[in-house]
């Protein structure tokens, strides 16, 4: 006969293998990853696996390195002078910091949405078509299809379908952010990185973005940075808590919010953090 306590032990014994299972379909694997701005080390030995087609949230106090980390995944930090990465990040098993990595094709596979929406000073259509055009696509019919499909996926099509040739700046803040998401989707990435995508938006626009994230994870691996605990709890499957450049705890979102192992995590997610 198994007692309830035995059951719990049994489950606990199973847990690591569940984690191992997950790491098998890890889309992004990070191992001992350090990051430096000049001589300042801002990420210390980050190791984690980001599962395929799930939403992983990165939380932590300001300045703990969330942006630095997420920008390392598409090597956006390369443009910062004197910045340097150590350790490995691999996507589908291929190390992205190896010398034979083509950064351009990496960034096409790993899309990014920024905190401040940054539509180009072009028409709505040209914004969405941008990524394809610089990739050499000229076929107007194909472009039309992708523009429509991307806008539909970003839940923006109905609002803009009659004014695709208007300036992207004519859109509201929330629409602009969804435009940026659509623009990222247009090049058909596998991973979508979002650095506080809703922090500048009102609650309604935020809800729209969250619903969108929920829909997108069927097809995309999503990593999102957020300062909003409710948002992390609502949209993510896994949550990583960073502090002072270290990964403190990484687990199922439920575990992080209901039953964290670390005292620091608990203090932070319950708002008791100083």
């Amino acid at each position, binding site marked *: 006969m198994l007692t309830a306590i035995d059951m719990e032990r049994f489950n606990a014994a199973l847990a690591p293998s569940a984690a191992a299972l997950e790491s098998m379909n890890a889309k992004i694997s990070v191992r001992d990853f350090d990051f430096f701005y000049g001589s300042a080390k801002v990420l210390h030995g980050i190791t984690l696996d980001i599962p395929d087609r799930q939403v992983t949230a990165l939380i932590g106090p300001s300045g703990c390195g969330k942006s630095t980390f997420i920008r390392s995944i598409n090597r956006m930090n390369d443009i910062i002078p004197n910045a340097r990465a150590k350790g490995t990040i691999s996507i589908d098993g291929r190390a992205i910091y190896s010398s034979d990595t083509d950064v351009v094709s990496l960034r096409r596979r790993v899309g990014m949405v920024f905190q401040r929406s940054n539509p180009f000073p072009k028409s709505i259509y040209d914004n969405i078509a941008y990524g394809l*055009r610089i990739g050499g696509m000229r076929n107007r019919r194909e472009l039309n299809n992708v523009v429509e499909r991307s806008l539909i996926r970003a839940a923006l099509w109905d609002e803009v379908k009659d004014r695709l040739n208007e300036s992207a700046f004519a859109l509201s803040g929330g629409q602009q952010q969804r435009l940026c998401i659509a*623009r990222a989707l247009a090049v058909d990435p596998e991973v979508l990185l979002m650095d506080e995508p809703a922090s500048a938006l009102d609650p309604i626009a935020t809800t729209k973005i969250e619903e969108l994230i929920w829909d997108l994870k069927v097809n995309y691996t999503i990593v999102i940075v957020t300062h909003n605990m409710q948002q992390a709890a609502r949209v993510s499957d896994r949550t990583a808590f960073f502090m002072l450049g270290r990964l403190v705890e990484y687990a199922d979102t439920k575990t992080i919010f209901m039953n964290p192992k670390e005292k620091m995590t608990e203090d932070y997610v319950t708002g008791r953090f100083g």
Partner: protein
Amino acid sequence: MSKAWRRKIISAIAEGFCAIAVLLALIPLAMILFYVVKQGFTSLNWAFFTQMPKPVGEAGGGMANAIVGTLILIAIAALLAVPIGCICGIHLAEYPTSKFSSIVRFAADVLNGVPSIVVGMFAYIIAVLPVKRFSAFAGGLALAVLMLPTVVRTTEELLRLVPAGLREGALALGATRTSAVFTVIVPAALPGILTGVLVALARVAGETAPLLFTAFGNRFWSISLRQPIASLTQQVYLYANSAYDDWHRQAWAGAFLLVMIILTLSIIARLSVRRLERMNRP
């Protein structure tokens, strides 16, 4: 109560001073425009546009050759200065701290302060002496050198005003640095760059000194780049200094036309900026 009164009085006095300052600044402009329009407009006639200058002392004729000459000269200047200036400006904006950039920036600033007559001498040495002939090309070259620093520095300044987020957005979509610059950053700054270019062009359109020993002037019809060419400014200078009433009249007409050309350039600059800005800014 008394404090409020004091504040109002001081404010009124300050406003008065501002108004006077504005008036003082506007009076010369208004007077120039008034005289040029009054004297120039009435002196304009069809012959002025269509006919060649008459021999010395003879009444009648026009400035057809000088009008075309001025247009050719500023076209040469634009063709030479805009591509080079924009490329320099892009380099300065992209590599702001490189050694080369600081040299270019310094050179541009020095060049900006060089008197136009000296620039004319430079063009004379470069483009006139070797072929032993004054030419439209030499004149255009002098004007190009004069407008180059303005083009370089406005291009740089405006490119640096483009938000960094746009570059990151382009790179994140798989753009190379070069394609990000030419497909996103330069187009975003283009309205401003265009104004800068047109304003610089308007400035050099009114230059006389650097043309004296480069384009030299020409009493006859010529549109050849390798021949001396007439220009409105030089013709106005020549006619205004003459002793003939009819030439004085034509000098006024020429001055009027010059002002109109410069005004048109400025207005085009404004309008094109507004059209592009509608695309560019919220």
